[in-house]
């Protein structure tokens, strides 16, 4: 594996991790909000 390929793999892994992190945080916030709303019903 060339250094270029290695750098590309790192870049893509980082990009995917960031997106996945954002998605997970978003769902945490969403479920918190849903729970609060449901408790008020």
């Amino acid at each position, binding site marked *: 594996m060339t250094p270029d390929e290695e750098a*590309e793999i790192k870049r*893509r892994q980082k*990009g995917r991790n960031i*997106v996945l992190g954002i998605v997970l945080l978003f769902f945490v916030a*969403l*479920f918190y909000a*849903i729970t609060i709303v449901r408790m008020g019903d």
Partner: protein
Amino acid sequence: MQGMNSAVASTLPADWRDFFALTKPRVMSLVIFTGLCGLLAAPGTINPVIGFTAVLCIALGAGGAAALNQWWEADLDAGMKRTASRPLPAGRLARGDALTFGIILSSLSVIVMGLGVHWLNALILALSIFYYAVIYTIWLKPRTPQNIVIGGGAGAFPPMIGWVAVTGEITLMPVLLFAIIFFWTPPHFWALALFVKSDYAKVGIPMMPVVAGERSTRRQILFYALVMVPVAVAPWLVGGTGAFYGGAALVLSLAFLGLTLPVAFRTQAEEDAMRPEKRLFGFSILYLFALFAALVADRFAAAQGWAQGVIA
């Protein structure tokens, strides 16, 4: 990554943008619009957080179904110019990853819909994903030239799901919203199929103009448009909306029918610019947006007390 050959590309972890492309974001935007309109037009109120969750799940479900569709059709997509650059046929994504992604997205959308909104909604959503990914994509699309009619059913679910998120039950109105998109899809798509020479035939997908011929396709466009007019006006006739929607639906649908007539009764000449077909296709998109916007406007007018006689 264009310069990298597919053997190398497939050993690399896929870029997140390729997963995003798998969800067909442009189709998703129309799904979000009609789903949101169904939600806003329904009688009653819904908490904004729950409403947002419902629309989000409709979008996630559509994305999951689109991913499953591309997983199944990767070989077909590779053979067609329009789709050859999608992540799977271009080799930027492994096929198994697309399947996993589609299943996770679909399951997530159904579970979140059930927990957050309503299990009846989750059931309809699951049904719509199954309908698109299995009944349409795998079973009927490669087998019948009526595939567009059947595919239209998949696109018709979102406003129904949006409506049921508010009311919690399936009544005549969400079924009528379903029927409107169902009958709208064939004239919309076949108008396009008449002037865009696609390479579906090359990969063995039976599209109506190729299988039944141009003349038959034109007549069928007229048939579905004729059925669509009363269906589009029906929400008003059954008392589900006010006169504002009724008037808008009547005018828009008659205009739609008016544009269908020249398409139905002409034959293509050599060097034909296909203006009537292009006009019909362009208007069909505007029509659907305007009709659903009118539906929402009608509900808001009723809520403000500007119109009378609106029932559920």
